[in-house]
């Protein structure tokens, strides 16, 4: 299934509407807290197409993580529905890979054993994936570090390792929760480019949550802008930048103007 996605030409602009994979239909999540019910996500609806790179931006606490965890089946919605390829998401799905905030490597395992962790849990034979993993390690510059433990790796290296861990078993959908939020600006640019490179090679369907409007604009085909809590869809922004993206594009008038618009949109909804 994913093999076919890999052969897609890398520079194709997202002009033709791709076939829909993820449907989020009036997703609503109410947390029961000590101080009463808390509406975290309010009738959020969106569709995400095959091979699309969608970013979700919004102010802190607006329910981005809540949305992503519902997409991954890690927790249930209070009402509304999420379907992946036509079947409702009610629990973790094998075609989904999550990338968590702050690498989230297991400190008692070395790099290779961390990368093989999904295979152990899924009881999947890793042998056919060895060349894939090796290739990924080389792409992210971690070849030769297989026996290192997480504490011996820098923050950027750890985050790259978690990227490899997610891609290792070839999921067709990647859900990423502020994966580079804790990194410095330079490492972050580097990681963004790396992710775009991997995506252009493998054409995963990506939902990428971030605080950073610049990061979102730089990476995405489409941006879902969220309102402050309770999180609603404020607007959908289609990014009209060619691919492959380059860092220079970040200073183009279009980029700067669109970033300002999104910022104002979020600020306006904060004031309300």
């Amino acid at each position, binding site marked *: 299934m994913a093999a076919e996605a890999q052969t897609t030409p890398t520079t194709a602009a997202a002009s033709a509407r791709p076939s829909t994979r993820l449907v989020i239909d009036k997703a609503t999540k109410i*947390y029961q807290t000590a101080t009463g019910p808390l509406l975290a996500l309010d009738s959020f609806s969106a569709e995400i197409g095959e091979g699309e790179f969608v970013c979700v931006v919004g102010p802190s606490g607006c329910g981005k*993580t809540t949305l992503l*965890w519902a997409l*991954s*089946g*890690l*927790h*249930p919605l209070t009402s509304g529905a999420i379907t992946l390829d036509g*079947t409702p998401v*009610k*629990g*973790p*799905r*094998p075609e*989904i*890979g*999550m990338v*968590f*905030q*702050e690498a*989230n490597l*297991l*400190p*008692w395992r070395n790099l290779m054993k961390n990368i093989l*962790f*999904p295979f*152990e*849990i*899924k009881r999947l034979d890793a042998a056919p994936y060895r060349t894939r993993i090796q290739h990924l390690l080389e792409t992210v510059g971690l070849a030769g570090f297989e026996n290192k*433990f*997480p*504490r011996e790796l820098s923050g950027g290296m750890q985050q790259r390792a978690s990227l490899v861990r997610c891609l290792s078993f070839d999921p067709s959908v990647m859900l990423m929760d502020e994966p580079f939020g804790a990194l410095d600006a330079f490492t972050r640019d580097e990681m963004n480019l790396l992710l775009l490179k991997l995506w252009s090679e493998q054409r995963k369907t990506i939902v990428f949550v971030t605080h950073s409007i610049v990061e979102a604009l730089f990476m995405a085909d489409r941006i879902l802008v969220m309102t402050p809590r309770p999180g609603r869809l404020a607007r959908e922004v289609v990014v009209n930048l060619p691919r492959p993206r380059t860092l220079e594009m970040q200073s183009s008038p279009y980029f700067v103007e669109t970033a300002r618009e999104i910022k104002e949109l979020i600020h306006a909804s904060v004031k309300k």
Partner: protein
Amino acid sequence: MADELLEKIPEFRKDTDVKPQDEGFIDWTALTHVPTARNRREFLIIVGVAVVVVTTIEILIRAFQVPNYVLPAPSGIFNALVNNFETLLPHIGVTLQELVGGYLIGATIGILLAGVVTQAPLVEKIITPYIILLVTTPMLALVPLLVLRLGFGLEPRIVAVALAVGPMVMINSATGFRRTDLAKIALARSYGANTLQIFYKIRFPIALPMIIVGLMVGGIFGLLTAVGAEMVGGGVGLGSRLVYYSSLARMEAFFATILIIATIGITMYVIFFLIGKKWASWEA
């Protein structure tokens, strides 16, 4: 495959990721984080000082003619150790048998109980007072009672050792199992992990450093209890030799026996220190 993944998924709270952990009131981890010689020079200095200390004691005891029954000279103790080693050997065997037997029983029950009990906070709260009671009660006090029920063989002592080791291992392991890291559990869940997998791939490794500390402290408690129980009754075991030699005022042999007991204790300590270095060093 998707269907078997659809088991109950807990709700997560993002602010509970990697909470500072409650380590109980005693920081036992100090036991696994002892400074050791870093190089040959340090090692030589450490050994050198030890030799000087022993030699000084020897010289002082001879110079002041300290009577044997107060403190025998190191050389005398060493001679007694060599001369009596053969007669002591079966007693060493007995003590080790009690220690290993009781330890295996106690430690296994302790770890299992901790793993199960920490899954249900209420059960844990109900059980903890009894465990603390068991930790603080010297199991030696129960030996006469156990002897009454189980006779003069090894059984009462093995039970006493198990009773001393179990709660100690349990209480430390429970502290370890309580250190849950929801982000890591969520990671495993996202790959469809079931409860059992989460237990042995996430919870257990996280708990392991504390379990090792528990095993080490438990071992030391076990040795104390084994020797103490032998002093209370019965003619075999290193503890019984302590009573025997002191009743005959054979102080060299008495101290030689103590030396053997200390060696057993230190060996246990070193074993767990090395295990900790291998399996728990990721935490340091």
